[in-house]
């Protein structure tokens, strides 16, 4: 495009998406976070091709340190755990598992939460107030405690942990959706559209939805990082993914006992969780700034 001869004097006006992308790119930290997060997602998607071994395959080398130590072997890049499984492979498969679970949680919590928020914003005051109180209450409850009680009722294990974390995340989506919609409903262009005779559905789809997307996108990003953290926390407490599963929190709780003689079994899985959370949080911060362009 750039090399085309300019016959006419024309000014290229960037689209809104282009402007937002440009403003996002200006934030160096957020751009770096996007790169790191893309790498993690890539590793997660292509886990079977990247990981050298099966995550449950056991070797005779127990508690081998990472390869850059003198005692380490290059066969096992990040060493092995207490029953001789390759830590690198387990972490790569763990990325796959964690991101997949968090995605499911966000899809469940997001769809339920946004629908409830939609209902709250468009319904009468009594229902709205009741929903508000209920959501405030669930928000006030310690999230992990609620998740633990739910897991205690339906039993430990991965699917149940997903339901529990999703339930805990729903109120955030409800509150954000509701306040975003009500915020827009009070604006004049919405009144104009109502005066033009737009029905409820048209009003929502054509007029409100595009304008509430930015806060929803930010909330989805934050929900994603919360989901990863809570699933890992449940796994660490022995209530989420169970033992042979290469879930990051579960790996950490297994290696808790080896903290003295094999510290790398603790530090490495933690670093994986930490970098994933950090990149998502930075990404969310950058998105919030970039999407806030008009204000």
């Amino acid at each position: 495009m750039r090399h085309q001869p300019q016959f006419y004097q024309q000014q290229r006006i960037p689209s809104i998406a282009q402007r937002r992308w440009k403003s996002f790119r200006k934030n160096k930290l957020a751009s770096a976070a996007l790169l790191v997060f893309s790498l993690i997602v890539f590793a997660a998607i292509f886990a079977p091709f990247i990981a050298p071994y099966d995550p449950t395959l056991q070797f005779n080398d127990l508690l081998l340190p990472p390869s850059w130590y003198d005692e380490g072997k290059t066969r096992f890049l990040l060493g092995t755990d207490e029953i001789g499984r390759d830590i690198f492979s387990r972490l790569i498969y763990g990325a796959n598992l964690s991101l997949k679970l968090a995605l499911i949680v966000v899809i469940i919590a997001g769809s339920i939460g946004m629908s409830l928020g939609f209902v709250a914003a468009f319904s009468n005051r009594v229902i709205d107030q009741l929903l508000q109180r209920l959501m405030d209450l669930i928000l006030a409850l310690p999230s992990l405690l609620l998740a633990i009680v739910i897991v205690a009722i339906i039993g430990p294990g991965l699917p149940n942990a997903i339901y529990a974390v999703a339930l805990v995340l729903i109120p955030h989506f409800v509150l954000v959706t509701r306040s975003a919609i009500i915020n827009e409903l009070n604006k004049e262009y919405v009144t104009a559209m109502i005066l033009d005779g737009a029905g409820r559905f048209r009003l929502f789809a054509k007029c409100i939805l595009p304008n509430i997307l930015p806060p929803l996108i930010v909330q989805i990003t934050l929900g994603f990082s919360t989901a990863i953290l809570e699933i890992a926390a449940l796994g660490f407490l022995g209530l989420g993914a169970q033992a042979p599963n290469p879930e990051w929190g579960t790996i950490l709780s297994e290696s808790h006992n080896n903290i003295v003689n094999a510290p790398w079994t603790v530090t490495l899985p933690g670093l994986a969780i930490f970098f994933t959370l950090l990149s998502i949080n930075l990404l969310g911060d950058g998105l919030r700034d970039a999407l806030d362009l008009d204000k």
Partner: protein
Amino acid sequence: MIRLFVRQMLMLLTSLMILTFITFGITRFFPQESLNHISSTSSQSNLLNEYIFYLEQIFNGNWGISQAHGTEVLDEFLTFFPATIELSVAALLFALIVGVPLGIFAAQNKNTWQDKFIVSTTLVGYSMPIFWWGMLLVLLFSLSWGLTPVASRLGFEYDILPVTGFMLIDTLLSDQPYAFEAFYDALHHLILPAIVLGTVPLAIFTRITRSSMIRVLRSDYIRTAKAKGLSQMRIIWVHALRNAMLPILTIVGLQISVLITGTLITETIFSWPGVGKWLLEAVHRRDYVTLHAGLLAIASIVVIINMLVEVLSFYANPKLRHKR
């Protein structure tokens, strides 16, 4: 003020009411034989009657006998709860004492490298999974450098009679000859868990203080104070801080449930004999009586504290008070 108080009380009552709906609903999913004490046994009972009976039992303090220890769960809760409060308060104090001055410092030096460093550090703290953070600090401070104990609240060599349940107070009350040494030992045990638990709130307090302080420092009355020739210290600590602290009060209220969530994990890492550890053991034993009691008690306490903080912020903030 009275109207406000009545309104808050009504909101508190509704919240507690909804809470009992939830816990009552949850008990219906528990195996029936575990909750005989709170489920009505009469044959012609309907849902409403059962709920009323449930409320009566709760109010009479009949919360059941724990399956594991055979004692009243309410008593058990009260023996474990002080340890949790001690840890949470210590963590909260740590977060406030470090976080607020850090936020003020960052606001004063806005957009310098110090400010940028502090802001990015808070993001790191915010993203820290505390179960890993706890293990890292144990690895570093306890195992490598031997600075702090690894677990529990007090060394085994001390025999302290529990009076209040708060170890720091009990050691001072004790008439043993080693009371003071025991106090230092208890303090020693408290430091690392409190830092671990306080990290996430610390990051949040720093960010909030910074943004709130920047907003206040831009206002006209601060310019007036500067024009009067007041020193920077005086402007910050006497004039600006009061107004900048208002949002922090609200955030402290919101952090209570985050702290309780954190204690569940911190207590597991440090074998801290508090409510979190007690509840987790109950989950593994399928002790539904204990779980129900723990959920109801902790949730009510959090709701009540939130209400108190809200009243306090109304009291402290004339803007909110005169709005309606």
